[in-house]
């Protein structure tokens, strides 16, 4: 049973600790510092958040997506075929992102996150998980003004993002998380989803995890187990029905167990965490579990995220004692 995160980590701490990244971006926008200086601060903050995850006891960390404005535009800005439009709400959160608009043929130009991975890996004592926004979610959260159908766009993105997966594999990422929260909102698209992900994963040997959040997989189970990933990550907070759903068929994969609420500051008790792990342990044996927050930690204040991770690690330690 290993602990991990689902990607983003809060970018700035609260007073009295300095909000260095926020200040650097503001100074960059006012042209008081150059891009080199901004990159240097991003590097420092990346090291800092890796350190925080390690100190909390997380086994497989992420780079915190410190350089990412959001999951969508980090890729859209670096691929051909996109322009970036106005602010739009990220699912049902009170968080916004600039909506990518597909105005031409989408095309992968060059490695997007490989250097980020290399940097993080070089500064982390623990394995670093690389992150890729999946083709379905990237398409669903963009506006399509070019392709004849949504399906064509999804498949085109799958083809192009395969290049990114290959580049991360080549960079040595031990695990790549493919983030696909949007499929939970339009489950009837599963055949397209499957086709796209199979295409994206073709010929890849790297360990890949498929993560969803903000809902349950009612209607997608057990088909989701047929997808070419070793691990399926699920949200058991907003998708509490997942406990029951996954008990309906043998779970022939590893499970990313999202049990610490990444959208509310209320702290889980160690007992609650142990209980959540116990509940799924009948269906998935504990050695096949990755325990992680329910979604991206960026929706929480930094200190709360840190405390929650520590609590989660303590819960996992106790669960290991209780459940063996």
């Amino acid at each position, binding site marked *: 049973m290993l602990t991990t995160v689902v990607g983003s980590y*809060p*970018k*700035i701490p*609260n007073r009295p600790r300095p*909000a260095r990244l*926020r200040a650097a*971006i*503001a100074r960059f*926008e006012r042209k008081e510092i150059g891009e080199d200086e901004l990159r240097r601060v991003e590097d420092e903050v990346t090291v800092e958040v890796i350190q925080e995850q390690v100190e909390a006891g997380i086994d497989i960390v992420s780079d915190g997506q410190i350089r990412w*404005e*959001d999951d969508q535009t980090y890729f859209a800005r670096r691929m051909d075929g996109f322009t970036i439009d*106005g*602010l*739009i*709400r990220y*699912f*049902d959160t*009170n*968080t*916004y*992102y*600039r909506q990518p608009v597909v105005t031409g043929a989408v095309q992968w130009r060059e490695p997007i996150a490989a250097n980020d991975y290399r940097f993080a890996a070089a500064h982390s004592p623990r394995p670093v998980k690389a992150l890729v926004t999946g083709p379905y979610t990237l398409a669903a959260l963009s506006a399509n003004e070019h392709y004849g159908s949504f399906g064509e766009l999804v498949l085109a993105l799958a083809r192009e993002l395969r290049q990114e997966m290959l580049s991360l594999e080549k960079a040595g990422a031990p695990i790549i998380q493919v983030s696909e929260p949007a499929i939970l909102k339009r489950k009837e698209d599963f055949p397209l989803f499957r086709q796209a992900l199979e295409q994206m994963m073709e010929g890849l040997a790297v360990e890949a995890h498929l993560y969803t959040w903000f809902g349950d997989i009612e209607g997608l189970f057990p088909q989701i187990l047929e997808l070419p990933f070793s691990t399926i990550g699920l949200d058991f907070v907003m998708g509490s029905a997942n406990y029951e759903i996954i008990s309906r068929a043998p779970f022939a994969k590893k499970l990313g167990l999202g049990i610490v609420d990444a959208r*509310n*500051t*209320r702290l889980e008790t160690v007992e609650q965490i142990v209980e959540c792990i116990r509940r799924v342990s009948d269906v998935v044996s504990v050695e096949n579990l990755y325990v992680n927050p329910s979604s991206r930690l*960026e*929706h*929480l*204040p*930094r*200190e*709360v995220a840190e405390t929650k991770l520590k609590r989660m690690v303590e819960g996992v330690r106790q669960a290991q004692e209780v459940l063996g």
Partner: protein
Amino acid sequence: MSEGLLTTTVGSFPKPDYLTRARSQFSLGKIGREELAALERQATAEVIRLQEEVGLDILVHGEMERGDMVAYFAELLSESMAIGGLVRSYGNRYYRKPIIIGKLHWQGPMTVEMWRYAQGLTDKPVKGMLTGPYTMVDWSFDEYYDSRREAVLDMAQVIHQEAVELEKAGASYIQVDEPAASTRPEEMELVAQGLAVATEGLKAKTMTHMCYGDFAAVFDQIVRLPVDLLDIEAANSDYHLLDLFRGHRFDKEVALGVLDVHTRRVETLEEVKEGIRRGLEVLPPQRLYIDPDCGLKTRTWEEAAAKLRVMVQAVREVRRELGIEG
């Protein structure tokens, strides 16, 4: 008495630079509450003056004393809410997201003093402005309640008490905004229940503003919300929303957003007139109000003024074409 196409705005106005500076000095402890409050009143007076000068019919006080529409109330509900750490909203923007930490209850008037001050400056009606119970809860963390429903219904009592105080003070329009409402179609019923509690027994005209969402999915419920007037954004979405009104019978009044507040560009007179005419295709002028899509706080003072001037001019010309009095 007007025969229709009354003009108003959604609520917030841009803060003058001196107020923005004073707010940051206040947060750093460099100036006191009194000094800040005096500047808030000064800015409010400027907002009222601008609206009178532009010629709007129903005024707002401009929300000069509010930073965030949820945090403003959360700070005053100090016995049951706390202000949490910084959370990113978008880009490099962060806000302190409130936390519900105890049973929600009204502690005393939160908006009456500023409303009274603003209303004292003008003969035109000034709207009482409240954040709706659903949005208050949805945009806060919750460490106290076991269900969103309980939290929303308790918050609705708080907002109701405040609405009653505004009405007692003389407010004839009370707006209860629910910008979070359209994000979860499955909770529209809860939004409606919260608003029903908040507006219960009010004689003032009640209204609610909504934006950013998939209205089509919840339209049947939106037209039945327990308010007299629905305020919707339309310019930003090319007036698609109006098509929904065609197929539905409903008796509410509608405030139609004809200015896109997310762009600096000032709409042309013709564009705005066209927007008003499109509204008139589905609603009689007596039930149609004209306003911007959303709060103006993201625009500069000059942009806001220029946009509103075009809007008022467009309304005047359409009124003239229809032969109705303003």
